[in-house]
């Protein structure tokens, strides 16, 4: 393993503290030697005002309006950058799960991926926005191409608490309405939810002509179900506890789980969304390369 590649290994990342450091490690490891993005976004044309939300670049605050109304509004321009990336991070309780085989919990892994993508995107002068959600949207950071935006993104992500249920369908509909600008919607979630509802949310994104990349973050234990001894499975997200002999159940569980994954995959394909399954014990380069290929697709459209 080359020196930089080891930073893509979740085990290595787990030893690093702080998302920024992790993100930097990932991206440096992945894109070492790559050229900067050839896409320079620019715009001078004023489009509209909108209310300030934390994380917005203060450079775009319309101080005149502030002087008149004491309210902070931002000036918005057409085509701030040539690429906008929306990172939708699932912070529901199920994302907290971490098996013994994995070095990071699904949430941590997803955070790493999100952070790395944000870093990468910002490095390339593109804009990145972030939404964290469980059964509702917890935080929404508008996309920005400002390198200092990264700090805010990372802060929001680090602050997020995974302790609620998921409800992807309505969230996606909501966000699809709110994310005005076309871009790449990167969903980082285990998607343990009502799949048809989730897919209809995706459809909404596609309707808004977003490019959608679904990073399906799964723990290896969820995929392999390697348990041997009698186990009390304590349900997350208000599901009941179950005491059972996992050996006897393994086959049936795996069938159910594969059916779920297949449903998601088929749904994504139908929506022409990219589906990428991420095992939390695998290096993160898969996530990055998938993203980059999506971005390339977007750029060439």
């Amino acid at each position, binding site marked *: 393993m080359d020196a930089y590649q080891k930073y893509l290994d979740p085990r290595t990342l787990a030893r690093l503290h702080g998302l920024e450091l992790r993100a930097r490690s990932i991206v440096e490891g992945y894109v070492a030697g790559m050229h900067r993005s050839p896409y320079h976004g620019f715009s001078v044309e004023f489009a509209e005002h909108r209310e300030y939300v934390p994380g917005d670049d203060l450079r775009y605050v319309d101080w005149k309006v502030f002087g008149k109304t004491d309210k902070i509004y931002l000036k918005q321009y057409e085509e701030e950058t040539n690429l906008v990336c929306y990172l939708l991070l699932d912070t529901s309780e199920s*994302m907290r*799960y971490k098996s013994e085989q994995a070095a990071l919990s*699904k949430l941590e892994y997803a955070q790493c991926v999100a952070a790395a993508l944000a870093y990468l995107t910002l490095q390339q002068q593109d804009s990145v926005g972030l939404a964290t959600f469980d059964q509702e949207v917890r935080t929404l950071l508008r996309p920005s191409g400002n390198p200092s935006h990264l700090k805010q993104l990372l802060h929001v992500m680090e602050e997020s608490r995974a302790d609620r249920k998921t409800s992807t369908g309505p969230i996606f509909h909501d966000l699809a309405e709110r994310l005005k600008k076309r871009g790449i919607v990167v969903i980082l979630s285990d998607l343990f939810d009502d799949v048809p509802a989730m897919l209809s949310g995706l459809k909404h994104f596609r309707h808004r002509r977003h490019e959608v990349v679904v990073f399906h973050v799964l723990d290896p234990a969820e995929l392999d179900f390697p348990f041997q001894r009698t186990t*009390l499975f304590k349900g997350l997200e208000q599901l009941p506890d179950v*005491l059972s002999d996992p*050996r*006897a159940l393994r086959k049936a569980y795996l069938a159910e789980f594969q059916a779920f994954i297949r449903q998601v995959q088929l749904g994504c394909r139908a929506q022409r969304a990219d589906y990428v399954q991420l095992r939390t014990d695998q290096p993160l380069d898969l996530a990055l390369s998938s993203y980059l290929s999506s971005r390339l697709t977007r750029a060439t459209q």
Partner: protein
Amino acid sequence: MLLGLWVHPAMLGWLAAAGVPLLIHLLNRRRHREIEWAAMQYLLAAIRKNSRRLKIEQWLLLAVRTLLVVAIVAAVAEPVLERSGLLTRIGQPTHKVLVMDASYSMAYKPADRSRFDRAKQLAEQIVAESSQGDGFTLVLLADPPQVIVGTPSFAPTEFLGEIAALKITHGGADLAATLAKIEQILQAARREYPRLGQQQVFFLSDLGRTTWAPDATGAAVAEFRERSQRLGDAAVMTVIDLGQSAAENMAVEQLRLADPIVTVGQETQLAAEVRNFGRQPKSRQMLELLIDGRRAADRVIDLPPGGRVTVGFPHRFDAPGDHAVELRLAADLLDVDNHRYLALPVKDQIRVLCVDGRPSGGEFKSATDYLAVALSPAAGQQLRARVRPEVVSERALLDADLTHFDCVFLCDVAQFTDREARVLRSYLNWGGGLVFFLGPQVMADNYNRQLAHPTAEDHRVLPAQLLRPVEEAHYGLNPLQYRHPLVTAFRDQEQAGLLTTPVHKYFKLQVPEKSRAQVAVALDGGDPFIVEEPLGRGRSILVATTADATWTAMPMWPSYVPIVQELLMLATRGQIPEHNVLVGQTLGGLLPSASGQSVDIRLPAGETKRATVTGDGAERYWSFPDTATSGIFQAQGAARPANQATSESFAVNVNTVESDLTQVDAEELSRDVWPGVRYYHRTNWQNSDAAVDAEIVVRSRLHLWLLWLALALVVTESFLTWFTGRQAR
């Protein structure tokens, strides 16, 4: 009782182990680990769809494991599904032969019940636990074997009555003969009761070595083993061991009289031999002598382990008639052999008839003159001589009732008629003693024809045939190393002159082959001089020369008186043994002509039974074979006229071979007694008193099936584990 269905009920404690799989299952559930689980909805869905199958699999596996433990434990405990009739072919009626050891070692009483009582109880239990339709037969393992119920009985109540009425014998047991009887019974039952599809033989015995491993050799052993093998193949044989391995026992082995004949006022020696068959020394054991039920003497003795002690009791009888002597040893756990009986006819005088074949007027000229003096040398000096000789001529032989005499001496009698020969033979049969002296008048052909015909064994009177008179001087007799009791008294008594007795003429005698005749004394040339043989119940003695000085100087020799006395003693020897027999031997005798038509036997227990009388006219015999117990038997109406009594006493004693309580152990039984024979050996019943109820009686081959079942369950369990485990792969 449920426990009664197992050979090793104690093993059933391990059935608790059947709970182990369940316990492990529960423990596993208790000792689970806990994890948080995100993908719960898929797990729930899997459970929802599979819960039924999972439950079934789990219970099936648990059941198989539990059953496996149960099967193994049950196999080890060896079930006997006797009661439910599941033995080998379900529901088939069984012919059960109960063989009860009735040898007297079964009277051994280690607790409040004797071995025989236990055997009865077990027999009753076997009957009680049998299924309807089973048939029972009952055989006593005794000597000779007794078939009590020979054809299968289907009435348990009556059969139980037969068991309850069984009495132990005071004899031994003949296993080989008993097996022959059992085989006959089984064969007959198979023929006549074909619906009794199964056959079982139960031996309830203490496995005494004397019964189960008697000293037999060659063909007898081979036949015994073959028969056992046939029995083992035809029937399920079960040996139930009722013995105790370290049983101690003492017995009075012998009660002897030093003299063959006892007269009033004469001091006689009673010698008792006591043996300790145990492994512990026995000290200070009381030994009592009872005469006619009254205590006459006692002695305290110490017995080393396995040792014998001989004790002498001098005694003088004051009254004539039959006396019952009993020697009693302090009671131990087996009392039967602590008593020894002796029926002793005590005579007023010993009456001897001397038949003079050559009477003569002169003093010491006739054939019996010296003899009469030698028989009673002290006559005239004593008020009452011990021996009373009566001299008669040969013609008087038919007139005299010989049964009045203890012994008859025939001296130089020329010849015998048919009738005389018959009288002499019946006298022998009755138990009398005959002593023949020969002489110049003797017609050898007549003697050989009438008295020593080789083809008429039942009518023989002489122990040897007469060949021819030989005239050559001999100055010495050969006592043949003093082996014969006639001459043992002369050992180391050179002055008695036996060795130097001069004989110058004698009959050459020929002892027939295959007879019991013995040469007691020979001439120095090797020719037989005195030949004797027990014939009938009595004894006949033949001396090759004369009783007077015609052919020999013996009557003048110092050896003459002792020789004549010894001849008298030897000739009368038959009387006491005749009255003292072992258990199982037949009592009997010649019925005196004056007596009535019947003889009643009074048994030691007090009851009276009638003896069988055979023959007619002058020769009528009575016999009584039913001597199953030891003690004094009285024969009413069989007394000899000489005894001036109405009854005669007989003593029946145990054969103390049976007193040795050593057992054959399981290994010897399978190795030496019944090699290759299929049988079951039960010993564990005596572990506790309570276990008596658990006495089982049959060992089936069910435990083997259970082991097969266990094996099948192991395979099933492995398959199930693999099958359910397949879900995990």
